[in-house]
C-alpha cells in the first residue's frame, strides 16, 4: 500500500515533484497546496486528479487525518517553511523540506540517505538544486582523501529559476555551502549560483572544485567520481560528467551537466529534476520504513 503525500507549494518544484510521485510505487500524491487559485501548478494538479487548496498549508491541515497524509513535501520558501513545518509536525506528518530553510538534517541520497534510516527524523532537508548536483562529487573526492576546500558553481537557465529562488538567493548560498561541508566532507565550503538567460535555455551546468590537503590520488579519485556518477544516475538519468576530473596541483575539478526528464519544465531544467528526484527517493525510503513498521510517525507539540 502506498503512503499518502501532500505537496505544499505549487511552483516549478512542487509541480515537477507531482509528476515524479505519480510514478512512484510506494508514494501516492493526494494533495497539492498553493496560494493562488489560478496558478499553473494547481491547475495541473486538478487535471491530474489531486485535491487542491489555495489557502496555503492551513487549507490542508483539516484534511490530514481523513486522507491519512503521512508525508508532506514543502516546496515553498525558506521563510515560510518554519511555520509550515510546525503545523505539519503537530499532526504527525513527516516533512521533506525542499526549501533552503534547513531546519532538519541535510539529505543528499547517494551520500547519506542510509544514515537517516532508523533516526526517527520528522524533517529532512534536501539542501538546494546546486547542492544535490554537486555534493555527491565533493563526497566522492573526500571519500578518497581529505578535502581542505570544496567549491561549487551551479549555473541554471533563467527560465527554470522561480521567484522564490530569486528573492532568497542568499539562502541558496548559505545552505549549499553548509552542506558542502557537512555532507560533502570539505573542511570549508563555498557555493556560487549563476542564472543564464540564453535562448534556447541551457542545461543545468555544475562545476566542482576541490582542494585536497595532500597531492590528489588521481586514479582513486577518478574511480570514485565515476562510481558516484552511476549512483546519481540511478534516480537522475541525465546526470553526466562532461569533463574531468582534471588535476592541477592539489585542485581537482569536475564538470557536470544535468539534463532533466522534462516532466514539468523542459529537459534543460535539470535543477528541478535533481531536487524532486532526490526528494522522491528520500520519501520512498521513509515510506518503506513506515510500511515495514520500523518508523512510527509521532505528533510533535509546538
Amino acid at each position, binding site marked *: 500500500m502506498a503512503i499518502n503525500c501532500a505537496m505544499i507549494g505549487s511552483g516549478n518544484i512542487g509541480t515537477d515533484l507531482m509528476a515524479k510521485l505519480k510514478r512512484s510505487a510506494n508514494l501516492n500524491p493526494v494533495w497539492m497546496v498553493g496560494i493562488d487559485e489560478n496558478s499553473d501548478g494547481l491547475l495541473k494538479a486538478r487535471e491530474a486528479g489531486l485535491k487542491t487548496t489555495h489557502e496555503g498549508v492551513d487549507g490542508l491541515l483539516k484534511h490530514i487525518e481523513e486522507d491519512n497524509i503521512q508525508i508532506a513535501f514543502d516546496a515553498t520558501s525558506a521563510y515560510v517553511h518554519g511555520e509550515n513545518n510546525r503545523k505539519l509536525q503537530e499532526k504527525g506528518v513527516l516533512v521533506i523540506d525542499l526549501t533552503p530553510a534547513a531546519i532538519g538534517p541535510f539529505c543528499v541520497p547517494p551520500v547519506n540517505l542510509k544514515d537517516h534510516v532508523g533516526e526517527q527524523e520528522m524533517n529532512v532537508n534536501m539542501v538546494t538544486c546546486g547542492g544535490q548536483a554537486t555534493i555527491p562529487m565533493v563526497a566522492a573526492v573526500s571519500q578518497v582523501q581529505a578535502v581542505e576546500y570544496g567549491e561549487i558553481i551551479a549555473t541554471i537557465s533563467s527560465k527554470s529559476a522561480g*521567484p522564490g529562488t*530569486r528573492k532568497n538567493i542568499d539562502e541558496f*548560498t548559505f545552505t549549499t555551502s553548509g552542506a558542502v561541508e557537512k555532507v560533502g566532507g570539505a573542511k570549508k565550503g563555498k557555493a*556560487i549560483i*549563476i*542564472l543564464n*538567460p540564453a535562448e534556447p535555455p541551457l542545461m543545468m551546468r555544475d562545476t566542482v*572544485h576541490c582542494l585536497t590537503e595532500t597531492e590528489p590520488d588521481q586514479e582513486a579519485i577518478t574511480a570514485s567520481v565515476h562510481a558516484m556518477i552511476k549512483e546519481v544516475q540511478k534516480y537522475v538519468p541525465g546526470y553526466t560528467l562532461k569533463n574531468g576530473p582534471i588535476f592541477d596541483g592539489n585542485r581537482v575539478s569536475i564538470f557536470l551537466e544535468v539534463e532533466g526528464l522534462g516532466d514539468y519544465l523542459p529537459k534543460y531544467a535539470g535543477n528541478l529534476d535533481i531536487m524532486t528526484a532526490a526528494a522522491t527517493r528520500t520519501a520512498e525510503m521513509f515510506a518503506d520504513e513506515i510500511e515495514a513498521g520500523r518508523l512510527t510517525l509521532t505528533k510533535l507539540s509546538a
Partner: protein
Amino acid sequence: MDLKGKKIRLHDNALRDGMHSVGHQFTLDDMVRMATALDDSGMSLIEVTHGDGLGGSSVNYGFGLHTNKEYLDAVIPKMKNAKISALLLPGLGTVEDLIMAADCGISTIRVATHCTEADVSEQHIKKGRELGLDTVGFLMMAHMTQPEALLEQAQKMVDYGANCIYATDSAGYLLPDDVTSRIGILHDAFGDDIEIGFHGHHNMAMGIANSLAAVEAGASRIDGSVAGFGAGAGNTPLEVFVAVCDRMGIDTGVDVDKIMDVAEDIALPLMPTPTRIDRDALTLGYAGVYSSFLLHAKRAEKNHGVPAKDILMELGRMGAVGGQEDMIEDVALNIKKKLA
C-alpha cells in the same frame, strides 16, 4: 557635441576591476598608495574589492591576496575626501558580506546582476538602502538586452531602493549609439530622481566615446580606471577621459595633471603587462564576452594548448554571462577533444 558646463562624478575602478589584471594580488600597500593618490587628484569615488566583489575570493575567480575586509580596513581610514565603494554580485556575495563592508565604512554598495536578472538583487539592495548606503543597481552585460527591457530591469532595482542605476558594458561591446539608447531611456524614465551611470570597457577602444555618449544622454556618474587598469583591455582610461572632459568644459572635479601622474607613476608599474587591445581582448569586445574571462582564457590556452581567441568566441556563441568562468576550462577541454 556640446557638453560644456555639465557636472559629472567619476568613479575609479582600478582597485577593483584592476584586480582582475593582477589575479587579485594587490598588496595592501599597492591599494593604499593608489587610493591616496587618487583621493589627492580629486577622484570622489573609488571602488575597492576583489575583482568579483564581496565574496569573490574563490577557486573559480582566483583567491585574493588579502580578504576584502583587510583591503577596506587598510584604505578607508586613509581617505581625505574620496568615498569608497564595494561591488556585490548576488549568488556570490551575500547580505552578510554587505554588512561587513558597511561596518568597514564604505559609502556606496553596487549590486551587480546580469542585465536580465535584476530580481536576484532584492535582498542586497534593500539591505544597502536600510543601512543608509548610496545604493547602486549595476546591470552588467547591458549589450545582451534591448533598451526597453533594460529599463524594466532597472525599474525593479529602483523599486527595491536603488538610488542610482548603471548600464554596464562588461564586454566592451557597445557602440556609442547603443549607449545613447540605453542611457537615454533610463534617464527619460527616471528624470532627476535616480542617477544614471555608465561603466565601459575599452576592448573596442570605445571607452571615451561611449562615456561621452553616456554623459550626453543624461548619465551623471562615469566609471573608468586610472591607466585603464581593469579586465580585458581595461576600463575607460580615466586620465584620458578627465583630459577630454577638461577640454570640453565638463566638470569632473579631478585634476588633469595629478591623475596623469597617478596613471604613469603608480598604476602602470603595478601592471604585469601594460593594458592594451591585443587580439584576445579585441575578441571580447567583438564577440560580446565578459571582460574578466580574458586572463582565464589565456591560462586555459597555456594549460590545454587551445587558442584563447577560439575559447572566447565559443563562449560568446554560447551566450555565457558574467561569473561563468568555470566554463572557460570546460570549453577549452571540449575544443581540445574535437581537435584530437
